[in-house]
């Protein structure tokens, strides 16, 4: 069958393209084949500057369908991200070019650049994660600090959000799982009482 061949040929050239262009564009760190398989790749991008994600390193999980490039690659975040267009649970991305607006001329590099741009400018009207989106709309400062906290925690961003760290530590001391605590607190808008209610309903 010619399609997978075409897909693999393209992927190989796209890997080379990213390797060549990564110097010029600091945003994309790398694109690598997982275990030498060309249908499952790992991309790494930087959080865009002057955003809550600045300084973070985000890992993308890219699956290439056999019909590629007639079908878009399946891309999701492997790193947890607090973003209205990215599921905070699964990492699924809501981006038009990965669905209906996919074009064959797009490459993995352009896709990664688009995702990076998406991080920089969230679109709350077309959300993937309703909780994050409503927070983004109603309480922008809380959203920003939550996103920053997530970036620090999961994406190795240098900035610190001490009060959130404190709250997490406080609840972890109660005997809860740390990641569960983070998620729940984020979803409850850092209201410890609400979070407690969710984590321990009884």
């Amino acid at each position, binding site marked *: 069958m010619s399609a997978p061949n075409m897909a693999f040929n393209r992927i190989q050239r796209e890997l080379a393209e990213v390797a060549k262009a990564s110097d010029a564009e600091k945003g994309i760190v790398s694109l690598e084949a997982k275990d030498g398989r060309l249908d499952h790749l790992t991309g790494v991008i930087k959080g865009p500057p002057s955003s809550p994600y600045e300084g973070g390193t985000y890992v993308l999980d890219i699956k290439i369908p056999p019909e590629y*490039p*007639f*079908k878009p690659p399946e891309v999701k975040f492997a790193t947890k991200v607090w973003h209205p267009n990215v599921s905070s649970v699964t990492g699924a991305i809501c981006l038009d*070019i990965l669905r209906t*607006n996919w*074009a*064959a*001329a797009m490459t993995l590099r352009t896709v990664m650049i688009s995702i990076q741009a998406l991080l920089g400018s969230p679109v709350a009207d077309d959300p993937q994660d309703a909780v994050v989106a409503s927070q983004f709309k109603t309480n922008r400062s809380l959203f920003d600090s939550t996103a920053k906290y997530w970036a620090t925690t999961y994406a190795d961003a240098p900035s610190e959000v001490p009060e959130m760290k404190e709250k997490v530590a406080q609840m972890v001391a109660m005997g809860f799982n740390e990641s569960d605590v983070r998620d729940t607190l984020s979803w409850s808008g850092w209201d410890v009482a609400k979070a407690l209610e969710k984590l321990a309903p009884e």
Partner: protein
Amino acid sequence: MAVDMKAAETFAIDLENPIKSIALNRDGSQVVAAGRNLLRILNIEDNRFVEKENLRFPNKRSNWNCASSDIVWNHVDESILASATTTGAVCLWNLSTPGNLVMTFSEQKRTVNRIAFHPSDASSLLSGSQDATIVLYDLRKQEKAMVYGCEEAVRDVRFNPHQNNQFAVCLENGNVKIFDMRKADTSERELTCHTGPVFQCDFHPSDRNLLATCGRGRCIKVWDMQDSGKSPTLQHVIPTIAHMGVIAWRPQRETYIAGTALTTDFSVNVWDLRRPYIPFASFEKHVKVVTTLMWRMDPHILMTGSQDGCLTHFTFQDAKRPADHVNPVGLDIGCYGDVAHACSQRIMDGYGHHGHHDKRGKKLASIFAESTSAAEDFPLNAVSSLSTFPHDSLKSLSMDWFVHSAKNYLLFGRSVSEMCTHNAAVAEKVGRIQVAQVWRIVGYLHAFSEGRAQKSGHSSGDNRIIHRYDSRGGTTYQNRKEDGLMQPQMPEGNLHDTTFQRSSRHPSAKDPPSGMMEPQSSNTGDFLFNEQTVFEEVDSPFVVAEPVDEESFHTLPTEGFQLRHELPDRAHACLTHDVEVVPGGRATTNANRNRIRSGSIGPDSETEDSLRLASLMPQVSGSSFLDFSDLVQESIQYHAEQGDVQTAVSLIIVLGDRIKGFFDEVLLEAYVLDYIDLLTRFQLYTVANEVIKLSQVSAVSELNQQSTTIHTSCNMCAKHLHSNGWYCTSCRKLTNCCSICQLPVRGLYVWCQGCSHGGHLDHVLEWMKKSSQCPTGCGHFCEYT
């Protein structure tokens, strides 16, 4: 000047071997002649050559490099000579050493056509060979210093006397290259001079911008090399009667150049650039081709060597002056039939004041030499009068008919008969009745063949002939049977065929030709009856010609006939006759019939045409098969030979495939090219292109595809793509890849005309199955139609 003018006169010496090349020493007192088995140095004395030295190759080598192709004398060191051999070796001779031959270089593989010493550097020797290389030897180091590569065999090399490091190279492909001695890899300039090999070039001795070249193409060309940025411009052309092999500028006379032809003409001519059409002086002494010529440092002395073995010393006072013996009268006819006539005032005066140029018609203008730009160039202050006669004053010369016909002939788009009728009308309108007649005949003949193709067509008058033929041959009964199938019974079928045969004869005799095409019904009894009577009246010779039939018909069984009329009998008689009568007798009756019919085809035409037609028709019947192609072919050939390629080519195009195979491709090509040439002369480019398109000659169709270059540019930086169409050297990117697989497209590339994106056909097809938008994501809803 070293040479005493008074002492010099024309003299020669026979060296008994063809001379290939000669060279003079610096002061012109000695000459060396080279050729096959020839390498001799001669002193030039007052009235004779005296042999000074015979250079000999050492014995062991005498066989392989004694055939010299060129010789040069070193003008810095008088004792040094160099000769080139046909084996590719270059030999260096020193007259002051015993044995003379000092060195042999064998760098080149094929004949060395020309060698040249650098004008000031005694140790540089250039050698150009048939193997497409030029080697520069350094004689001090005794080795090659440089090798210049060319893509073609080198015919001549020559140092530029005005520019120390420059030399010119004449190539076999018609180009001349200018090299800088120091740059071996590329030439400085290149100019295309001739259509075939360039045999020689010569830098002008005083004007540093001029370069003369001669080669295939029957002319000497003089180029202006002044602006090195621009391509050299052609300054002068001297037309000659044969391809020129040797040229040399005349020293101290700036506009004169001597030259001699490679074939045909054995004289040496000297032209004045200002009067290029007739040689200024001509030297005729040689009886074979002159291979080399040289001015002996003096504008009045020319030395030549010829294949007849003669080394000749010409002086100018012995030259013929052809220009003095011609009558300065010119006459030419333009393509539209305008006549121009120029005549020297000297001759006009001789005729007195008769004003003979007024005799033929309206005198348009009388222009004197000083008022025309062309005449200003002439050194002679000749006064001449020029008269032109417009074509409308001379009907016989007018070419209006040609233009009209060319514009109005229909060559495609309709049926053959329609086109023929139309073209006949066009030809008639311009008064070419015979051509009109030919068109008409071709139309009819073709209609016949068409009728044959559709055998069921009982309504066509052409069937008549077909049936007659079939029955006559006796072998093509099958055809008759097919026709008969249309009828319930065989005998009746015959009956109807034959009756129809007659019925259609009548209108052809009476009506204008178009009547023949009209459908007619033959099945009504009344009609048959009427026809019978008319037939007997009109075609009485036919009846007379067939008394035999009357007898034979009586012997035949009659059971199958419905005896309702006497006509069926006659019809049957025809059949029996056709089958039984010996071919010889048959042929005469046939001819008779045809004569009758042909006479009746064009009742309104001239007698001459009718006669011509009449003489053509028997040939038609003479062929065993109903094919008029050879008749038409003859007619076409007749017209072409009469110089009327228009009619010939138009006929060929109209008939197209029907006449294909009857003409030799070469002949056809010649016809079509001639017609195109004519059309171009009349600036009928549209018609010419139509002819190119419609002619089925491959060599002609190529005309419209030649010399069309499409330049492509990079779609990102708009830089021209030179080396290949898919990689831009400046962006270092592949251009115009398939937008789906992003590889260069080899083969079919489909574009969306709206957004100009596209790619491999199958990839785009697959993409369009899934999406209606452009695969590049440009947002365009692509439409591939």
